[in-house]
């Protein structure tokens, strides 16, 4: 088991290196640091000295891969690729183009993100499972049919509509919750209630429809027929057999996104003014702060790969037939 995990981690290194290379190419080779400086300082009327000054200030005045002016290890380490890209492996995110420490910002901003993402995940799992079980239980009746149609309709509505509509209806008309904002401690409940609710409803269509097919697949298995033949009641079959076995594919689908919860939701957070990592990224995009975007791409990829490893591990835990070697 341990060797398996170790091997997966080692296997992740070339992938992370590839990601690093892709982001480096996007930000430094397609566009040179000169372009970036011009973008930051404004397109018109900038003096070449200002560009040089800006590059020096932010540490972009180095060659890309090989520094011919230096000797020894410095020739490799005093380059943009080493300073800006490889240091991400050590979780050294450096400074944003605005001059702030990215690691500090990330460590402070992940908690608001988590406070929305974690409850939203659990509540939506619960809602999808309950809804999907109802549909599967009443399969091929009008309940099932209208439920599936409802799912397709819910899926077809833009996620922006859920956010804007929810904000308008619950916060402006009914005045149940504040429109946006965030607060620490217990006060945060009134701020995070609506985003969580919207996240659950917004995913309900696609989620419940997917889980319904999982349930139906499971209900067509032979062991269900056996259980029914033994004379077990519908509810015993559903809860005792089908639900337990369906949880397996559901679990593997969920575990992979658990680490990514840190990143929060881009659009939701910026609409509700939650100071999480999602709105951090949006702000960075609007300010054209490429250092933050680069760091976030790397962080997001690491979290996703961790999620993949956790999925495999959770498989062996949930399904004793699976053995990793």
């Amino acid at each position, binding site marked *: 088991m341990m060797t398996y995990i170790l091997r997966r981690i080692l296997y992740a290194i070339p992938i992370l290196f590839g990601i690093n290379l892709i982001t480096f190419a996007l930000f430094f080779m397609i566009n040179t640091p000169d372009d970036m400086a011009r973008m930051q300082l404004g397109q018109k009327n900038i003096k070449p000295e200002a560009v040089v000054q800006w590059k020096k200030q932010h540490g972009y005045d180095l060659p890309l891969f090989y520094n011919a002016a230096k000797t020894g290890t410095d020739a490799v380490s005093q380059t943009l690729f080493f300073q800006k890209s490889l240091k991400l492996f050590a979780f050294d995110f450096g400074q944003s183009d605005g001059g702030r420490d990215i690691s500090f910002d990330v460590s402070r901003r992940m908690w608001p993100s988590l406070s929305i993402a974690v409850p939203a995940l659990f509540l939506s799992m619960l809602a999808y499972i309950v809804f999907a079980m109802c549909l599967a239980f009443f399969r091929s009746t009008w309940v099932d049919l209208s439920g599936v149609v409802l799912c397709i*309709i819910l899926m077809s*509505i833009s996620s922006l509509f859920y956010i804007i509509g929810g904000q308008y209806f619950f916060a402006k008309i009914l005045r149940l919750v504040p429109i946006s904002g965030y607060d620490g401690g217990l006060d945060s409940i009134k701020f995070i209630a609506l985003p969580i609710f919207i996240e659950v409803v917004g995913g309900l269509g696609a989620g419940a429809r997917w889980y319904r097919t999982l349930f139906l697949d499971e209900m067509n298995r032979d062991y269900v027929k056996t259980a029914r033949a033994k004379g077990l009641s519908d509810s015993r079959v559903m809860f005792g057999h089908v639900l337990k076995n369906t949880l397996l594919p559901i679990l593997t689908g969920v575990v992979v996104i658990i680490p990514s919860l840190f990143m929060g939701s881009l659009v939701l957070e910026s609409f509700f003014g939650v100071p999480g990592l999602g709105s951090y990224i949006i702000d960075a995009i609007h300010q054209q702060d490429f250092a933050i975007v680069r760091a976030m791409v790397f962080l997001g990829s690491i979290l996703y790969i961790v999620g993949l490893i956790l999925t495999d591990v959770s498989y062996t835990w949930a399904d004793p037939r699976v053995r990793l070697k």
Partner: protein
Amino acid sequence: MDLLWTDQCFLLMLFVAMLVLVNALRKETSRNRLKFLFRKPLAVCSGIVLFFFLLIATLDCLHLKPVAADGDLSGNRMSVLDKLLAPLDKFYEKTYSAPMALTLFGKETVLKDGQVQQIYPRLNYPPAWIKTTEDRDKLVMGILRDSLLISVLCLAAFGAVMARRRGTWRMSKNLALGSLTFFTCLLFIISSWWLSRYFHLFGTGKIGQDIFYYTVKSIRTGLIIGTLTTLFMLPLALILGIAAGYFGGVVDDMIQYLYTTLSSIPGVLLITASVLSMQTFIANHPEQFSTLDKSADARLLALCLILGVTSWTSLCRLLRAETLKLREIDFVLAARAQACSAWYIIRRHLLPNVMSIVLITLVLDFSFLVLAEAVLSYVGVGVSPMTISWGNMINGARLELAREPLVWWPIAAAFVFMFVLVLASNLFADTVRDAFDPHHN
């Protein structure tokens, strides 16, 4: 004709789709599957709605040469759709006005007969002879009656032709539902076009732009993103997926490494990073994109390219798995035993067998892409702010909900049109999956 890049790609795409369809009709199996599609009422109805969307987008893609008349501003291209909707494309009121209104939405202070008065100023667009709301209502009722009449006549004529051919007035449920959808769409299109000749059908927005015109123009952007992405994604996924599955070994390892790496980066972030660097590129090379609509068009095309490059991985993975399965089946082994070349086997045996997977993925992705456009525009990495799209409309109208009294029509129009398109394509995709999925029976 003076086609933009995206126009050319879109028309090319339509042409290729036609060729594929005609080619497919020659084969018994694909004919049977299409018949299955035609037997499903939902597929027929949603297909008809999609057809109308496609028609509007195609009309909007046929750009004509800019007229160099002296009154013309900056020589903007006009599409056939612009011609149909003219003068709405260049007509601006002062600011907000409600749907079908005759006056502006807000009161303004004007000097009238030497007195200062607070009145609702009259709009410029509705003809002067429509003086009161009674006049308007009479006109609207007349238009609605006439367009209903036209549609019913069309329906009756169609029914008569069908009855003559089939020898009975009885229609199958499908045909009846299909023709009903067709003529409902026709009714909507005729009456809304007719009404837009006299009024701002969906009102006007902040800078006085006609919302109806903007909503209809957005159809092109949505469809282009939904379809052109496919154009860029398909060759990558097909070539790499089949190559990885068929050749195995080092080729397989390299392709697997490539798509694992790309799919490990969270989708939105990869798109964001690519779009940001593309934006910087366009901003720093203004000489290559001479006019505003050319640079906006380049951005739209680049967005499709980026979406395509970031989303081929899942299809590639599916194709690889399917090819791995297929290459062990006897007919492929037999072909290899007869020393058929790899290219021949891929073309004659593998490609036709994975086409159903490709088709299903494409129709399923379409609605996702239309929805994604709106979100990306909000994030600031979508289409250029110059392009008319639902995402930009929603983004611009977001703060209007905070106004008192409420300005709801720009955002509602965008959401409703987007909803109809996405719902139709979701329903269509569902039946396509039922018809073509080999594992689903």
